């Protein structure tokens, strides 16, 4: 059955090659049809000229884009200090929720309450309440900065999610791993640090990547309490020019960062799925 034909392929290989070619042709054709339908139809919509002038205005784009890039540096800066803080706090909370010593029971309750509360409140509310509320207690400058308290709001919210992901990772490490480690005479703390956590963290890297991508977008919520990051900067241009193109520009900048990051997270997920099977 496996006799190669003239092209050096077995019958099965030749069949599969034909199938692949057929799929590729169909996919390409349908893509072209859909794309041309969009390209043909959208500009013929009655409101297209207004939409184009309002969302895809080249002149406005050129005027606003460089400043949007500048403002995006603020996003990157806020992201850069929030992400590690979230990872550390999230891990601590996950561990607090996992402690088994009875003396630390209050810690477990606190951990549970914390994740319930911060996952239950919209981020923007937390940003407002903490960003304006805590400085309102009378902290002196620079300790009342919206950067500090806004970041804290993001950190607290995201740490709650990240903690849950870490916890799912910890739970996913089979009990037999703990038993094996304990049977060697390791203490609970050593079991967690040397055996459970390294495995748990590896397993949740793809999910945590998705949290990072979400955080990267939610940094913009700080604009509500003052910092002129990209979303606010785009809003200023929008108001002054009465044009939405700056938002499109901001979206492009976000996409330039998040699409590669999303692809990478998907790649990690797929890789992990392959390794497990």
């Amino acid at each position, binding site marked *: 059955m496996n006799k190669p034909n003239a092209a050096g392929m077995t019958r099965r290989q030749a069949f599969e090659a034909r199938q692949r070619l057929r799929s590729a042709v169909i996919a390409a054709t349908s893509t072209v049809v859909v794309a041309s339908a969009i390209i043909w139809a959208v500009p013929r919509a009655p409101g297209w000229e207004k939409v184009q002038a309002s969302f895809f205005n080249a002149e406005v784009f050129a005027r606003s884009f460089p400043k949007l890039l500048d403002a995006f540096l603020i996003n990157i800066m806020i992201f850069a200090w929030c992400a590690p803080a979230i990872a550390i706090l999230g891990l601590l909370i996950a561990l607090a929720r996992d402690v088994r010593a009875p003396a630390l029971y209050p810690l477990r309750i606190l951990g549970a309450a914390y994740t319930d509360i911060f996952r239950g409140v919209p981020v923007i509310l937390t940003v407002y309440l903490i960003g304006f509320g805590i400085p309102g207690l009378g902290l002196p400058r620079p300790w009342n900065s919206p950067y500090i308290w806004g970041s804290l709001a993001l950190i607290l919210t995201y740490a709650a999610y990240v903690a849950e992901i870490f916890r799912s990772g910890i739970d996913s490490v089979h009990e037999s791993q703990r038993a*094996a480690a*304990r049977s*060697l005479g*390791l203490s609970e703390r050593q079991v967690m640090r*040397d055996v459970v956590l390294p*495995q748990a963290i590896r397993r949740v890297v793809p999910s945590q990547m998705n949290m990072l991508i979400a955080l990267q977008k939610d940094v913009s919520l700080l604009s509500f309490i003052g910092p002129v990051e990209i979303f606010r900067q785009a809003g200023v241009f929008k108001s002054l020019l009465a044009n939405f193109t700056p938002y499109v520009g901001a979206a492009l900048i976000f996409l330039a960062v998040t699409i590669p990051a999303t692809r990478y997270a998907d790649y990690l997920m797929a890789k992990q799925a392959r390794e497990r099977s």
Partner: protein
Amino acid sequence: MAKLELREVIKAFDDKTVCDGIDLDVEVGEMVCLIGASGAGKSTLLRCINLLEPIDDGAIYLDDTDIAEPGFDPLLVRRRVGMVFQSYNLFPHMTAAENVMLAPRRVTGRSRADLKDEAEALFAQFGLVDQMAKYPDQLSGGQQQRVAIVRALAMRPEVMLFDEITSALDPQLVGEVLDALRALKSQGMTMVLATHEMGFAREAADKVCFLKHGRILEEGPAETLFQAPQNAETQAFLARALK
């Protein structure tokens, strides 16, 4: 090496009694095999000896110390009593050598470099020197299980517990693991095995105990128990197992 004495050991999960008054003596250098159907309480008994499960009543003497005394530090026990599991349970994120050195490093505070020679000697003893730098998923089941034995031995235990360590292996890999057990026995290790390998039990064990419903129904020298079981349940079990 140490000796082990179990007296009236009782262990229940919720209202299901898994060990129902077990008495067992394991002399220094003796190999005791626990046989019986799955669910008879063999594994639980081993886990109790290692204090992975606290017992409800009774006593477990390790060289005359009652380690089942409530409040007794389980870490001290586990460092003296090694255990190997059915599913190997190697740590997948560490190489074979790191798996073996982890506990000595953490418990004695010695460095990797310091422990390397000792570890290498143990690997050599079980024909595993070439596998030291490999990760568990690069090893065969038999190799993994032997690494697990080496890992337990690295703590220089006085008693070793083996919980059906060949059950998860492909048949052609069982032999190499049983060879490792024979080697250990020849070194005078005190050992308790839960096993389904009747041939091995008959050949190597000093004493065989038949368990059912958390009780030892019959015990005796391997030859006696396999050739002339007294208890009707033992007879029925062996008839099935040896068929």
